[in-house]
């Protein structure tokens, strides 16, 4: 079996290397990815269309806004799926947790908890910075959301899971994840009500005291906030469920 697998793998590797010969040279200016009209359009006109200096954010939240919305929905669905798969019902719920020797209740370590107490405000502030500054520097909703989610996971690691769940219970996490998607879709629908197409942020200039380009700039921030809500809460929900096999107690 293993020999067959190795043969198949090596055959595919040979095919891929054979194909790699036709790829353009590393960093070549005329490579399809660099010379395509799409790339040129994004680089040349993002500033004119949206006034956002970070092209990655502009492409993510505006040009490809529909795609990103459903990426966020995928994350939301993954969070729900993990809870549904691991939730204990009926006979499962009654069965007592397996007692292990490592289950002895220990006091959270003083040094660890105090360090974390100092670190968490910095981490969360940095998450907000990454989120809000995503237009002009590397960052955005996904990155800020992951950093924010990490701060909650850090609480669970340093103390225990119930302490983190006191701050953000899994039910509330999933609710907030839904709120994030509603913010995203809501901005899209709102621009539709104002006469544009779905996610056509420029129409928001009818209600915001800014130009059409700046309306797209500000709407992108709103959309990124929605993404950050979903990513933060789903990351924490995934950790909380996986680390306790769905029991949501004890933890590491």
């Amino acid at each position, binding site marked *: 079996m293993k020999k067959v697998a190795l043969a198949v793998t090596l055959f595919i590797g040979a095919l*891929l290397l054979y194909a790699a010969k036709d790829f353009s040279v590393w960093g070549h200016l005329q490579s399809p990815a660099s010379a395509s009209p799409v790339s040129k359009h*994004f680089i*040349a006109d993002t500033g004119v269309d949206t006034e956002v200096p970070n092209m990655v954010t502009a492409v*993510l939240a505006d040009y490809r806004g529909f795609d990103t919305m459903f990426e966020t929905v995928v994350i939301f669905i993954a969070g729900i799926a993990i809870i549904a798969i691991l939730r204990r019902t009926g006979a499962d719920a009654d069965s007592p947790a397996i007692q292990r020797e490592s289950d002895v209740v220990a006091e959270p370590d003083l040094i660890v908890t105090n360090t974390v107490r100092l670190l968490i405000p910095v981490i969360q502030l940095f998450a907000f910075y990454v989120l809000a500054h995503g237009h002009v520097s590397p960052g955005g909703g996904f990155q800020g959301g992951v950093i924010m989610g990490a701060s909650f996971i850090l609480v669970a690691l340093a103390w225990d899971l119930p302490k983190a769940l006191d701050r953000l219970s899994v039910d509330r996490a999933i609710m907030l994840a839904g709120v994030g998607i509603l913010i995203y879709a809501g901005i899209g629908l709102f621009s539709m009500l104002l006469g544009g197409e779905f996610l056509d942020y420029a129409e928001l200039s009818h209600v915001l005291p800014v130009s059409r380009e700046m309306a797209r700039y500000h709407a992108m921030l709103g959309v990124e906030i929605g993404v950050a809500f979903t990513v933060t809460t789903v990351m924490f929900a995934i950790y909380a469920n996986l680390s306790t096999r*769905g029991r949501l107690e004890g933890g590491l």
Partner: protein
Amino acid sequence: MFGEEGLLNELLVERFNYCVYVVLLLIGLYAMIAKNNLIKKLIGMSIFQTAIILFYVSIGVKEGATIPIYLAEHDPHGHHAEHIVHLDEANTIDVSEENATPLRLSHEQDHGHHAPRSLTDEETLGYANPLPHVLMLTAIVVGVATLGVALALTQRIYRAYGTIEEDAVLAAIQAEDAATVIPDVLATKPKAKKG
């Protein structure tokens, strides 16, 4: 096949990034096919995913280009802010009616120079294509979420069968099937004979 000097040079020097991605991809693929342990299969899947991410990011590389964020001189927003400051200055001086015309002139010139404009072809050469970065940015986060689902399924399998070795799980499933299907087969056989 690879003994030829030109081909080796072409593959290992000019296209080294593709070699690395192929190797990573093969490690992941082999782990997914050959390993018996479900967690090891998932580790293979993650390595495979990393190979794809490396592939996308490396085709986005452009010689002499910087990250796809406008430099200060191309930054539309920076000029916009500057533009507002100019307007304010012009307004306050309009009120005091001192040196109004020269400032206004300079402001007009600034406007012509600083209004957001498309970059020329020459200037676009200075920035990498943002699209591969966008695609991988979402792929990484979605990859974490889907890996979470896979791990949850593995935990569920462990809860049900007490093992995450694939062959043991398969044997258990077959044993279960055999236990439930055989009575049905016995019940239907006489009917088949009659028919």
